[in-house]
């Protein structure tokens, strides 16, 4: 048979240069090269050098980039269904998240496919927690906090405002000065990020209940995907699946380690005044997101899958 023509896959990721996520992609890249006899070459642009998530999606659409490792911020630019993973208090554990992802994968693959993308694998950014200057134990205290929200997601900003919170939309580069000047005094982020960006020194109180996992995915444009031989595609997906397992375990461990390291340097873990009440109120807000921030269909799919998984695991526990 004829030798396949080489395919260079240009892939952007928000993950910092040299981070666990970046290394996992590099590993996957060398696996791809090996599995395709050097036909598929993965070239990675780490650390957001190719632009923010919206820019990276735009560059894939016009054909400048072939693939990207993005979080739900960028995924929701492709299809709003991905906003379902931003529902607070949706998952209790990684096991639950993995089981739900297995369940809903065909639905989200379909959504990506309609927009011209292929899902390579899911990625895990770690658990997002509330970090604040003063301890926050009740939702009323959260409402008084000056909460950082990323500039650009106006729907989310308006939603927070309408519900009586005080969001402050800032550019990511303004977070540090925002914390220093007191423009913001609370933010939602993962322990790994809070530590690597040194934000935790200004917001040293971490709420113990995670709001949810930071879900991401690695996606490729259909255009590039279909330029690869069908037989090779299966080998690429197999390598991606292997990479997904490794990164989930790796980040879970790193996140835990980050919390311990930050505790040694002054981080205080704060518990709710009333955990049940905290959960109930946040779940009430979550329910109000249906049809507003999250398309109703995606909301129902993900919550139903979660309920199913939870019933099955509660059943097997007892």
């Amino acid at each position, binding site marked *: 048979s004829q030798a396949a023509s080489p395919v260079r896959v*240009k892939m952007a990721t928000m993950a910092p240069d040299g981070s666990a996520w970046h290394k996992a992609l590099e590993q996957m890249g060398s696996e791809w090269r090996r599995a395709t006899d050097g036909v598929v070459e993965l*070239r990675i*642009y780490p650390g957001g*050098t*190719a*632009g*923010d998530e*919206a*820019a990276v999606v*735009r*560059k894939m*659409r*016009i*054909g*400048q980039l072939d693939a990207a490792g993005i979080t739900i911020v960028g995924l929701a*630019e492709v299809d709003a269904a991905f906003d379902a993973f931003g529902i607070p208090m949706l998952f209790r554990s990684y096991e639950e998240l993995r089981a739900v992802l297995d369940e809903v994968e065909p639905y989200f693959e379909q959504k990506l496919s309609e*927009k011209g993308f292929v899902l390579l694998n899911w990625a895990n950014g770690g658990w997002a927690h509330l970090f604040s200057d003063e301890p926050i134990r009740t939702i009323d205290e959260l409402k008084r906090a000056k909460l950082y929200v990323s*500039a*650009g997601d*106006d*729907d989310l*900003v*308006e939603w927070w*405002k309408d519900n009586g919170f005080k969001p402050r*939309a*800032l*550019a*990511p*580069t*303004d977070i*540090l*000065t*925002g914390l*220093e*000047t*007191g*423009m913001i005094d609370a933010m939602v982020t993962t322990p790994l990020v809070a530590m690597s960006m040194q934000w935790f020194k200004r917001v040293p109180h971490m709420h113990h209940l995670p709001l949810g996992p930071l879900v991401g995915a690695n996606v490729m444009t259909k255009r590039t995907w279909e330029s690869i031989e069908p037989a090779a595609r299966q080998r690429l997906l197999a390598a991606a699946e292997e990479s997904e397992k490794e990164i989930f375990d790796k980040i879970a461990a790193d996140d835990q380690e980050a919390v311990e390291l930050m505790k040694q340097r002054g981080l205080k873990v704060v518990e709710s005044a009333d955990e049940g009440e905290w959960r109930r109120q946040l779940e009430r807000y979550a329910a109000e997101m249906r049809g507003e921030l999250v398309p109703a269909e995606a909301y129902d799919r993900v919550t139903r899958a979660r309920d199913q998984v939870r019933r099955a695991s509660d059943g097997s526990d007892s």
Partner: protein
Amino acid sequence: MKAGRLIATARRGEDLLAATALVAMGILPIAEGLLRSLLGIGIPGAGPFVQHLTLWVAFLGAAVAAREDRLLALATAQLLPESWKPATGFFAGTVSAAFPALLARAGLEMVLIERQAGAEIAVGVPVWVGQAVMPLALIGIALRLAWKASSWWSGRALALGTSLVGFWLGAHAEVLDGAAAWPWIALLVVATAVGGPIFVALGGAAALLFMVDGIPAAAVPVATYELSTSPIMPAIPLFTLTGFLLAEGGASQRLLQVFRTLFGWMHGGTAVVCAVVCAFFTTFTGGSGVTILALGMLLFEALKRDGYADRFSLGLLTGSGSLGLLFPPALPLILYGIVAQQPIEHLFIGGLVPGMLLVALIAAWGMRAGWRGETSRQRFEPTAAGAAIWKAKWELALPVVVVAALVTGYSTPVEAAALSVVWALVAQVAIYRDIGPGRELLQVVKRCAVLIGGVLIILGMAKGLTSWMVDAQIPMRALEAVQSVIQSKLVFLLCLNLFLLVVGCLMDIFSAIVVVVPLIVPLGAAYGIDPIHLGILFIANLELGYLTPPVGLNLFLAAYRFDRPLLEIWRASVPVLVILALGVLLITYVPWLTLGLLDLVGR
């Protein structure tokens, strides 16, 4: 006759749209804040709309600039013999008309893809509507460049022909895939050297480089859109408008009076006053040349009246036109923060001492001239000084208000910039009444939009070139290459000084920041240079470029303003260049000048 009236109406509409977009950028954030705190209702999407208005101001302003022959170009064309100009102008116009058309088609591609994707800015307004201004304005610019390429119809037809070819190429990258880019880029460089607009060279080169790599030219407008709509970008046009309103109002007279009563008693007092007044204005106008144009004659006459030598005065004013670029909220600091992803406030604080050092060096040189010459002084009169300060209180308070709003966490850089616009508007129109509220205000804002459009379109196109460099992994390769040759930090800094001096000679400061900073930042990190220190030394170094031929903006503006030969201006500015170079060396090798104050305030 009828057609003529129609064109005039269309032009007025274009002017009005550009001016309205610019003023709306200032008013929206303030109105949103007021409404929310007073009535508890906000303006949905105020933030994203202001970001997209930046794009509109950039492209509408540039379109009007093309109409009025005010797109920023290299001044090298002025050195050509008069008899060559019809031929070189035709060549520059014909080549230049092709690329905006190419970029317009590429922009249309982006708009169509965005429309299919269906994203919204806010409250149901689609993103593609925000983007649509790019292809529309670029078509207008291409047609205007083609029209101005020649005064003969046959010449115009030929230029229009190249536009059509460019428009077709904009959607056919495959034609150039694998071809050599350099002959085309050489053509662009020559066209720019003989007077073609700078933005055309940057955007055209970026599009060509992408296309020979097999990537659609739409990559350029996508990069332009990304930079123009970034969250902090609106601060740049807003602060420029503030500076423009001050310069067009009577602020220059009032401030001159203040600083004269404060420093006029010293030897060389008037020279010191000139340096300080120039720095104050440039801080707001951002080194776009407005300082020399607006204040040059006023200050020159003050210096001559007080007995300063002609040559000294020319040198002082030409050099002082770029003082102040390190003070908040100067445009280069904001731009560096956006490109290098550093907090703007840290750059503002870091630049204070180095900025004062440069002003002090120039002031010292002025005092020496005053000491040795027969210059006149005036007595210090506390009551006169108090009266002058009281009269100019609204202008003097402006930098204080801006800095206070920022450091207390009361407002973001964009909100502080919007506040400064509203403040300057109220002061110049309502309090001092230096600018009439109707047609006069519209004209001032429109002139400012033209200036800003000229600068922002350069930035946007430079971002296209940066995007190509990142795509081709050039920053990474540069890092490897430099690290294999240079081991020591000191040698690296020395090479950086020399490199930036050359960059300053060849490029304007704005595109230099957008294109060169992504190359320098990883290098700085590798050699352990603080990113804020790197930013300040970068800008200080490029400040020298305002006084170096062939691109030195201040040299040409001063030659124009004072109506002197370029060579005379250049000779007169050599001492200032040497003094500023000394300051740049100090800023480079004494990091404490930049970082000391930041440490002190615990940043």
